[in-house]
């Protein structure tokens, strides 16, 4: 619209300037006064709160400031992604908590998306049984409070036998009330290199697909992408790993003393939290996906089929781009919900940021700082998710004219 009108020279001229009169009847003066007043009141309230808090804390002889972050924490943490011991500082303990929160959130978001999409599509299936089962799942799961579900999963996992009577479904895999124990390779340099090669392969495959598409646009011939993609994504990491001597030492869990040692452990606390969050959020995602697909007019399918596109192509090229436009914004809310709901971890003993910050504020007695840290962490994570999803939403949005 603006493009059309700026050509008209009459619109290039600025409106005539009115002198500002210091009068209540001048709209601009009124606006300015109100804005100054509102900002002034907000600043005054904040200043009063800060000053008053500082005064009260001083009178009650309560320590303030973030100096405690550098002190030795002395608190034990069961699960940590990075190295941690009780001799480390509060700052590192809190970092461990943040990483634990991120761990359960990221894995949870990926799994909830996959499971939720599958259930959403299943609910639209022509198979009567499948559609009913999906409906029952959605209705039951989303009607029960999440906390109840978390405690349910945790109680179930506690009902498993002890480590000495652990279930052993596959050789080397043990399931007990201490968690799931899996064999795991001993991590070496070659594995890191292979992981980097995998990332490089994914990037390469993406670039190749882009190039193939650009060529197709130029000459109209479709090109096969998948052979090269498989070679890059699977072949490249394998080749790197083999070139570095193909190390393969499996660290198997062994029952020693009280518990298993070695191998990879999935703790009951983490597993209960993950299962609870994923099943709960998946029910909401299923409804969002269903709504998104139903939002695409049936005529779109028919028109695409009339063009001679195959079923998969119709879904990928015609239906999904339109459905995603409906799906992505509410999906962002669900991702945020899952992340924030992970704070219910305190109830079942998974040491996320809330759990560790709570302990910190209790040992240091500095509640305001502790709560501020929790708020800052969740705000940062949530704003990051929002920013990413908004970027993605803008990218996939239909270009409208």
């Amino acid at each position, binding site marked *: 619209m603006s493009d059309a009108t700026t050509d008209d020279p009459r619109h290039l001229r600025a409106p005539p300037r009115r002198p500002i009169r210091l009068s209540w009847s001048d709209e601009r003066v009124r606006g300015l006064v109100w804005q100054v007043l509102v900002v002034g009141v907000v600043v005054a309230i904040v200043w009063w*709160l800060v000053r008053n808090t500082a005064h*009260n804390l001083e009178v*009650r002889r*309560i*320590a303030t400031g973030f100096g405690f972050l550098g002190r030795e924490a002395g608190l034990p943490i069961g699960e940590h992604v990075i190295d941690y011991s009780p001799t480390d500082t509060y700052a590192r303990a809190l970092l461990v908590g943040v990483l634990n929160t991120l761990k359960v959130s990221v894995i949870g978001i990926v799994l909830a998306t996959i499971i939720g999409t599958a259930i959403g599509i299943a609910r639209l299936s022509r198979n009567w049984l499948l559609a009913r089962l999906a409906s029952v799942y959605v209705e039951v799961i989303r009607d029960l409070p999440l906390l109840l579900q978390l405690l349910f999963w945790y109680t179930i996992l506690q009902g498993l036998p002890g480590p000495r009577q652990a279930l052993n479904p596959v050789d080397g895999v043990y399931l007990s009330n201490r968690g799931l124990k899996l064999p795991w390779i001993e991590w070496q340099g070659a594995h890191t290199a292979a992981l980097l090669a995998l990332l490089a392969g994914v990037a390469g495959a993406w670039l190749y697909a882009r190039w193939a598409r650009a060529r197709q646009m130029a000459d109209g011939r479709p090109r096969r992408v998948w052979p090269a993609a498989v070679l890059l994504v699977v072949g490249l990491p394998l080749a790197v790993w083999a070139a570095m001597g193909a190390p393969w030492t499996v660290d198997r869990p062994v029952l020693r003393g009280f518990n298993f040692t070695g191998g990879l452990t999935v703790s009951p606390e983490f597993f209960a939290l993950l299962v609870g969050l994923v099943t709960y959020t998946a029910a909401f995602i299923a409804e969002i996906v269903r709504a998104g697909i139903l939002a695409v007019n049936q005529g779109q399918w028919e028109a695409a089929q009339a063009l001679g596109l195959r079923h998969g192509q119709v879904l990928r090229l015609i239906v999904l781009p339109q459905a995603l436009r409906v799906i992505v914004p509410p999906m962002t809310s669900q991702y945020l919900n899952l992340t924030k709901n992970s704070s219910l971890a305190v109830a079942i*003993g998974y040491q996320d940021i809330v759990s560790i910050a709570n302990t910190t504020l209790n040992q240091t*007695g500095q*509640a305001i700082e502790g709560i501020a840290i929790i708020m800052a962490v969740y705000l940062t994570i949530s704003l990051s998710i929002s920013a990413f999803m908004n970027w993605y939403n803008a990218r996939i949005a239909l270009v409208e004219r």
Partner: protein
Amino acid sequence: MFGTIRALGATVLTLAGVAAVLLPSAARAQQQPAPAAAPAANTVEAIRSRGTLLCGVNTGLAGFSAPDAQGQYRGFDVDFCHAVAAALLGDPGKVRFVRTTTQNRFTALQSGEVDILSRNTTWSFSRDTALGFDFPAITFYDGQGFMVRADSGVTRGSELNGATVCVQPGTTTEQNLADWARANSIQIQPVVIERLEEVTGAFFAGRCDVFTTDISGLAATRAAQGPRGEQYRILEDVISKEPLGPVVRQGDPRFRDIVAWTHFAMVAAEEFGITQQNVEQMAQNDPRPEVQRLLGRTGELGQMLGLPNDWAVKVIKAVGNYGEAFQRNLGPLGIQRGPNRLWTQGGLQYAPPFR
């Protein structure tokens, strides 16, 4: 289930406590611009004008503070609040109990939500200095220990290498455990669960090999299991000193004195053989001068505290002497007097002289 919802409520309460620090005493702070005047300096007047003592207690620890079948709080820590109410208000019933968790108890006291915390709280250096609290007396000498399944074969703490340990957060217990493990080069895997009900539930379900807390707490937890409790063993290792007692806000010496001397009156009463039964009779005709001063027949000790002179009689009539309160609440759990015997019997409970 509702327990956990309450546990989350505890977090909300912490937030509320923070808000309380931020907001309500604002008006007072502005009336008293001099920072030397502590805002909570008149706890005694506040309690008198309110007519009830606000007492922060444990949500449920058998023997110390737990609701009975009628929903009334009973226990050793609960009785201490009744004793303070008897001394200060003349009526042991004028107490309102506020349930506090390990996490929100200090915020509750700091923000003035409770007047006194009688909640098996350990007196430690940093709590006394950095948190703005006073610990007037030690009502129970405790120590941290371990409980294991009897059939695990463990008899000493040094055999716990590799064990999974259930522990509550926000207590000195958590730090003691880490310190002890480090000092003894023992690897432990902690499982940290906030509420007592859930952490003991996890232990009895077998999630952990060991449950660690104060030995009195271990005994209470085991006793609550009924006959099943015999399947569990409390190890003899004591890895820390846990002097438990009431906590008050710093900067109010008068209230602090009343709390401290309420405890000492109970200890002195046991030493002099004054009981719930015979206290009135002894107040009339016991010839010993110190007993007469304690029970207010001679001297003006009560007035020095700002209380009626028969304050100690009311305390002892309400809850009995120290030994009676101990036996009534902790005896049924099988907790021995141990270091909590009187100093005359080789224990640590000692009251300064009443003169």
